[in-house]
């Protein structure tokens, strides 16, 4: 029965072709450092799922942000777990993506013909860091508030256009409810969409070029 369903679907969707291309690729003799890309992808998925769950209760307004998170932590069933995974997962994601980059660098995997894989990866690292930064403000407690004050002041030190960029980031001259709203928007809508799209390109390139060999003495 399951076999029949599978054959029916495969005939129409080319499942075997997808499986062979994506999961059953030929790869050279590699080591555990080569699993960090997959680990990054999985933690991105986990952040996506737990983030969607948190947004069920979270309210991005100065009035309710803190209270809604208190409710998530103390009132909602397993809220502490969902938020805990999202909280620690964010640090984990930055660490994993960064070590993934180091692996690519030290294994010289960024060279021809994989320059575009590297370049899209640079954007993925930047988007990851941006997700982490924008998410940090959302609890709207003192630590979150002052971290964003400092972060946007840093932006302000860029010569000539710095203060303009800082005000764009803040959505005004101060860190305010407008800042909270736009950080939430960027954190929960813009960046996940951008990350998903660029991950798609990145994965396409990884599959297209295959995994690079570990450099040997001759390289």
């Amino acid at each position, binding site marked *: 029965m399951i076999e029949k369903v599978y054959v029916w679907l495969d005939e129409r969707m080319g499942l075997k072709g997808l499986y062979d291309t994506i999961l059953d690729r030929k790869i050279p003799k590699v080591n555990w450092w080569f699993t960090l890309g997959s680990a990054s992808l999985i933690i991105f998925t*986990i952040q996506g799922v*737990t983030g969607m769950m948190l947004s*069920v*209760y979270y309210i991005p307004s100065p009035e*309710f942000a803190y209270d809604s998170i208190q409710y998530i932590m103390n009132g*909602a069933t397993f*809220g502490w777990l*969902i938020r805990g995974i999202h909280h620690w997962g964010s640090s984990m994601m930055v660490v994993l993506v960064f070590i993934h980059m180091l692996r690519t660098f030290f294994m010289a995997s960024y060279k021809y013909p994989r320059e575009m894989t590297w370049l899209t990866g640079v954007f993925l690292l930047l988007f990851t860091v941006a997700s982490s930064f924008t998410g940090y403000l959302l609890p709207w407690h003192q630590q979150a508030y002052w971290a964003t004050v400092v972060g946007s002041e840093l932006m302000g030190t860029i010569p000539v256009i710095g203060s303009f960029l800082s005000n764009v980031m803040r959505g005004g001259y101060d860190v305010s409810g407008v800042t909270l709203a736009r950080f939430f928007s960027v954190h929960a809508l813009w960046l996940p969409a951008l990350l998903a799209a660029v991950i798609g390109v990145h994965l396409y390139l990884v599959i297209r070029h295959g995994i690079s060999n570990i450099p040997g003495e001759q390289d």
Partner: protein
Amino acid sequence: MSSGSHHVSRREFVTIVTGVIGSIMAALIALPGIGFILAPALKAKKSTGWVSLGPLENYPIGVPTLFNFTRTNINGWEKTSNSYGVYILRKSDTEIKALTNVCTHLGCRVTWDETQELYGCPCHTAFFDIEGLVTDGPPPKPLPQFETKIEEGNLSLYFEG
């Protein structure tokens, strides 16, 4: 896969182990996640209880009189107050009929029309008689009654939130 043979290849073993561990990890997030989203619907309501309607003399005999009250629920981090209305019909000194003013069709509020001697619902032209029975329109059942009690001349009703 392995037809007839009990031998499990290395590849099959890794596939199965990966599938099992992956499913456990997915369940560890998914099951708490389902509870996280469904839990508010499974909590006991706080608004159930006796509501005081004031002295019995406030309600004239034979005429349905509207009494409005609010009940509060805790939803997440906020208190939500809802307004409810009840028509008190005092048939005699101690015989009380307390009808909700929430139409049994789709939840609009009915009002007592003294000239017609009917409860009318404006949303879909529904009518109930003084006993709460449907006389016209789409409502599927009569207006429900509240349980009432009289203590030391004060009337109260039991509200199930």
